[in-house]
C-alpha cells in the first residue's frame, strides 16, 4: 500500500533555530496536512494545503510556521525560530479526495532544547 514518508524521524534543535520537517505524500493525493501531538495529548491540526496554497490554518500556525511544496512531491513544514513549546511529534498526512480518509506518516519527533 502506498505510504506517506516523513524525514527525519527525530530532530533535536536548540531554541531559536530553524527546522524543516519533510514529507513525501502519496503521489496522486491532492490535499495535504500537518498535525502535531504533544506527548500524551490530542492530535492538533496545524495547516491544510491544496492547489499550492494554504487552505486553512489553526491558531497554532503563526508567523513562525510556513509550508511549501517546492517540487511537486515534497511537502515541508518550516519553523523559523523554534520555542521550547514546539517540542512535539509532527505528522504529515495526505488525502486523495476531500472528506475521505487521511493517510499519515510515521511522524517527526521534534525536541527543542
Amino acid at each position, binding site marked *: 500500500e502506498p505510504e*506517506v514518508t516523513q524525514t527525519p524521524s527525530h530532530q533535536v534543535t536548540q531554541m531559536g533555530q530553524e527546522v524543516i520537517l519533510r514529507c513525501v505524500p502519496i503521489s496522486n493525493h491532492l*490535499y495535504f*496536512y500537518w*498535525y502535531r501531538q504533544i506527548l500524551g*495529548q*490530542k*492530535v*492538533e*491540526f496545524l495547516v*491544510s494545503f*491544496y492547489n499550492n496554497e494554504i*487552505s*486553512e490554518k489553526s491558531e497554532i500556525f503563526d508567523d513562525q510556521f510556513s509550508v511549501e511544496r517546492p517540487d511537486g512531491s515534497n511537502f515541508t513544514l518550516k519553523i523559523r525560530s523554534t520555542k521550547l513549546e514546539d517540542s512535539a*511529534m509532527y*505528522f504529515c*498526512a495526505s*488525502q486523495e479526495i*476531500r*472528506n*475521505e*480518509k*487521511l*493517510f*499519515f*506518516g*510515521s*511522524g517527526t*519527533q521534534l525536541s527543542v532544547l
Partner: protein
Amino acid sequence: SQQGEEDPQALSIQEGENATMNCSYKTSINNLQWYRQNSGRGLVHLILIRSNEREKHSGRLRVTLDTSKKSSSLLITASRAADTASYFCATDAATQGGSEKLVFGKGTKLTVNP
C-alpha cells in the same frame, strides 16, 4: 468547537472480551472517522462512517453513528493483545465551503491483557 471527545479515556480488558469506545461531537458533520495509534507511531485509518449511515462493519470493528445525539461508538469484538493502542475519533465540519480538516478527540487508550 467541533471536537470529538472520546470516553472512556482509558480502558483495560482481557483478551477475548469486547471493547466499546464512545465519541461525542458538537457540530454537523459530513462523516466521522476512527483512527488507531500505536505508541509513538502515526495514525492509521480504521473506518469511516458517513452522516447518512447508522452502522458500519469492518472485520472485528463495528461503528455506529447517531447524528441526533451527535455521538458514535466503536466496538472491537474478540479483542487481541495486538489491539492495544490509542483510538481516536475525528470529525469534519459540514459547512458550505467549509473546513477540509479533520478534528481529533483526545483518544481512548485501550489495553488488552493476554
